[in-house]
C-alpha cells in the first residue's frame, strides 16, 4: 500500500557541483517517489533547476561579502524567530558556547532550517553531519554515510584531534549509518559506530553506460594501463609510476594514462620525469564520464595504487567496462576484487609486487580476458545502480520509522 504522503527527504552538507555518484543517487531517489530537498550554499546549476521532486534550500554562503552574509543571516534568523520560535530556541541553544563569530556561523548554518520538517535527513558525508550537527535538534531521524577519508585518514591527523569525538556524537544521534564497504564499517566501529546501526551498501555504477566496447580493440603489442583518481597523495600515484618503471625495465612495453587532476599534479609530473617515463605516461586531466568510458575501453588493465580507499568507484567503472584490475589491498577493495578472479590484489606501498602482477597480465592476454569478463559479471551481480537505489530506499524508509 503506497503512502498517501510522499516521503520528504533533506540532503544536507553537500556543495555544487555534486559528485557523480551522489547525483545518480538523488535522481534515483526522486524517481522512486521521494520529495528531495537539497540544502547548499550556492544556487544549483541550471540543469538541476527544473528537476521534478527536487527542491532547494539556500544557506547564506560563508564566503560572500560580509554585508550580504550578515543581511542574509539576519533575514533567516528573523524568519525563524517568528515562524518557528521553538526551533529558534533550540538552534540558539546549540550556538551557545562559542564566541560571537562562532555563534553567528551557527545561526547562519541552522536558522534556514527552522520550522521545516522532513521524514529524514541524509548526510552523504560525515563532515557534513559534523558541520550541521545542530540539525539533530529538529528531531527528524538522520542517516549518515561513511565513504572514506573521514574515517580512514582524518582521525589519524594530529591537527584534527577533536574529530574522533565529533564522529562519535554523530554516530550516537544517527538512526542508521550507511557504509560503502565492510572495511569502513569495521574501521568506524572504533569511533563509536554501533554495528547494529550500520548498513553496508556498496557504491554502484550504471552497467548500461559503462559497458565494454561493442567490438574489442584490435590485438596489439604492449600493455595499456589506465587509472582514474584525483592527483592527491592518498591515490599513491608515485607507487604506480614506480611500478611502471620496473615493468618497463623488465622489458614490457607498458603505457599509462592517468585521468584526474588535483593539488599534487606537480608531484606526479615530477615523478614522471624523474623516472624517465615522459614518453609513456600521459596526464589526461579531469574528463567527462563519456570520455572516461572511451579511455577505459581502449585500455588493457586498470591500476589502483591507493594507500587508502573506502571502495573505489573508479575501479568499479573499469570493471563494468570489462577491464581486469590490479589493485592495492586497501579499504574495501578486496570486497570488489578477489585475487585471481576479477584481477590481482597486491600489498599497499609495494611497487615491486605491483610490477609483478602487471607483468603476469602483460604476458597472458587470455588471463586478462578471463578476469575482465569476471569483473563485468561481478559488477552486474554486486554493483548495479538499480539494486543500489532499492537498497537506499529501504535503508532510508526503515530509518525514518525508528
Amino acid at each position, binding site marked *: 500500500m503506497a503512502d498517501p504522503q510522499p516521503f520528504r527527504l533533506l540532503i544536507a552538507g553537500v556543495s555544487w557541483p555534486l559528485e557523480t555518484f551522489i547525483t545518480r543517487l538523488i535522481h534515483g531517489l526522486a524517481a522512486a517517489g521521494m520529495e528531495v530537498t537539497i540544502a547548499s550554499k550556492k544556487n544549483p546549476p541550471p540543469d538541476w533547476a527544473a528537476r521534478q521532486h527536487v527542491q532547494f534550500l539556500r544557506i547564506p554562503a560563508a564566503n560572500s561579502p560580509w554585508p550580504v552574509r550578515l543581511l542574509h543571516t539576519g533575514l533567516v534568523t528573523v524568519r525563524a524567530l517568528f515562524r518557528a520560535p521553538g526551533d529558534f530556541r533550540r538552534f540558539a541553544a546549540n550556538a551557545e558556547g562559542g564566541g560571537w563569530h562562532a555563534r553567528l556561523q551557527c545561526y547562519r548554518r541552522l536558522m534556514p532550517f527552522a520550522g521545516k520538517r522532513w521524514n529524514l535527513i541524509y548526510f552523504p558525508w560525515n563532515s557534513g553531519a559534523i558541520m550541521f550537527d545542530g540539525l539533530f535538534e529538529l528531531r527528524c531521524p538522520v542517516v549518515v554515510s561513511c565513504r572514506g577519508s573521514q574515517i580512514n*585518514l*582524518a582521525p*589519524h*591527523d*594530529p*591537527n*584534527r584531534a577533536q574529530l574522533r569525538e565529533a564522529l562519535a556524537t554523530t554516530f550516537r544521534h544517527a538512526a542508521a549509518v550507511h557504509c560503502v564497504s565492510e572495511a569502513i564499517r569495521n574501521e568506524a566501529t572504533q569511533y563509536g559506530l554501533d554495528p547494529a546501526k550500520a548498513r553496508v551498501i556498496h557504491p554502484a555504477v550504471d552497467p548500461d553506460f559503462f559497458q565494454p566496447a561493442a567490438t574489442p580493440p584490435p590485438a596489439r603489442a604492449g600493455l595499456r594501463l589506465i587509472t582514474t583518481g584525483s592527483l592527491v*597523495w592518498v591515490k599513491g600515484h*608515485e607507487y604506480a609510476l*614506480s611500478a611502471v618503471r620496473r615493468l618497463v625495465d623488465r622489458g614490457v612495453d607498458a603505457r599509462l594514462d592517468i585521468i584526474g587532476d588535483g593539488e*599534487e599534479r*606537480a*608531484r606526479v*609530473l*615530477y*615523478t614522471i*620525469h*624523474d623516472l624517465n617515463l615522459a614518453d609513456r605516461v600521459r*596526464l589526461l586531466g579531469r574528463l567527462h564520464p563519456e570520455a572516461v568510458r572511451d579511455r577505459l575501453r581502449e585500455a588493457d588493465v586498470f591500476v589502483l595504487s591507493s*594507500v*587508502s580507499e573506502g571502495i573505489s568507484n573508479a575501479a568499479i567503472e573499469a570493471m563494468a567496462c570489462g577491464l581486469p584490475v590490479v589493485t592495492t589491498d586497501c579499504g574495501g577493495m578486496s570486497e570488489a576484487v578477489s585475487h585471481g578472479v576479477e584481477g590481482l590484489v597486491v600489498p*599497499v*606501498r609495494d*611497487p615491486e609486487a605491483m610490477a609483478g602482477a602487471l607483468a603476469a597480465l602483460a604476458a597472458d592476454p587470455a588471463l586478462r580476458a578471463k578476469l575482465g569478463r569476471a569483473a563485468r559479471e561481478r559488477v552486474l551481480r554486486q554493483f548495479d545502480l538499480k539494486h543500489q537505489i532499492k537498497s537506499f530506499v529501504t535503508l532510508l524508509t526503515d530509518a525514518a520509522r525508528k
Partner: protein
Amino acid sequence: MKIALLVPSFPKLSETFIVNQFLGLLERGLDVHVVCQHSLAAEWARFPRLLARPDARRRVHVCWPHEPRWRAAFLLPAAVACGAARRPSGVARYLRRGASERGVDVLRRFYLDAELIRLQPDVLHFEFGALAVGRMYLKDWLGCKVVVSFRGYDLNYVGLDDADHYREVWERADALHLLGEDLWRRARRRGCPADKPHSLIPPAINAEFFDPGPRQHAETAGIASRPLRVLSVGRLEWKKGYEFALQAIKLLKDRGVVCDYEIVGDGDHLEVAAFARHQLGLEKEVRLPGPLPPSQIKERMLAADVLLHAAVSEGFCNAVMEAQAMRLPVVTSDADGLPENVVNGGTGFVVPRRDPAALADKLALLAAQPSLRQQMGEAGRQRVLKQFRLTDQVSAFEQLYARVANRAA
C-alpha cells in the same frame, strides 16, 4: 654597488640560508637589501642575529599589499608619488620603458615593483628561479643586472610541462647561481645554453653554531635496551619522501632492529606521515613533534645516532649539512644535490631514491657499528669545515656580484 635580494617572505626558518647570505654580505660592508612580499614579526623573533643588527630591519623592504585589489587601486597614487619624490629619474625610466612595452599595464607593474623602483639596485638577485619568470623586464626597466638562483624545486617541477617556462631567464639573466652540478645539468636539460655565465655556490651553514664539541658514538644500537635513534629534519612535504623513510623504519622493525624515529618539521604532509605511521604500525616508534627552533634541532642532533633524509627531490639540503657539522652520520637518498652534499661511504650513505630497503640496510649497518658512526661523524664535520663554510660562500657571492656589475651591458 647596491644589491637587492628578492624573496617571497623574509625571514623564514626554513630559509635560514637567505638570512645567512644577507648577514654575511652585510658584514662584508656590501650595500645589500632584501625585498619581499611578507615579513612576519613572529619570524623575526626567531633570528637573534638579525635583531642584533639595528640596520638589518631598515634594509628589509616589504612590497605594497596586493590584496584586496580595491585597496591596491587606492594605494597606487601613493606608491607613484613616493617613488617619484625619491627617485625621479628611476621612475621616469621605468614608466617610459614600461609604457612602450606594455602600455597601461605598466601602472599595475609599477605598483608591484614600487619598492624596487625606489631602491634602484645595481644587481637584482632573484633567490628562486620561479620568482624570475615573467619579471625579466625589470632588467631594462630598472636598468640593473640580474642574477637568478636555482635551488631545486624551481628546476625540478615548476613549469615542467611548459618547454619554454624559463626561456626568458636563460636569454636575459646576466648570471645564474646554482647550488651544484646536478642543478646545472637540470638547467641545461631544460634549455639553458651551456655557455650561460653561472656560478656553482653550494649553500653554507654556521659551523660555529652547529658544533657538537667532541662526541662519542660508542654503543651498539638497535636493540630493545638501546634503540637506534633516527632523526629527520625538514618540512613535511611530498618531496621530502617521508613515506619511504617510514617504510624503511618498518622494514627494520620487521628485521628486529629497534628504532626510535623522530621527524622534526611542519607542513601539509603531516597527515600523510601520521597516516603512514598508523598504517605501518609504527605509533610507538615514530614521533612527530612539529617544527623546532635551531637550538633544539641542535640538541636533537646531539642525541641522535643517524640523520635520515629520504627525499625524492632536494636542491641540496641544509639539514644534512648541519647534521654532518654535528658529527652525525647521514643516510640519504640520491635526489639531486644530495650526492654532492654527502660523501657516500665517507660521511654517510647515499642510496637510490624511493628505495626503503636500501635505506634500511644502511641504517642497520650503522646501528651495528658504532665505530663506523664515529668515523663518518668525524669525516662529516671535517667536510663541512672544508667545503661549506659561510665565509667562502659569502666571498663567492661577492665575486659573482662584482663580475656581473662590471660586465659591460
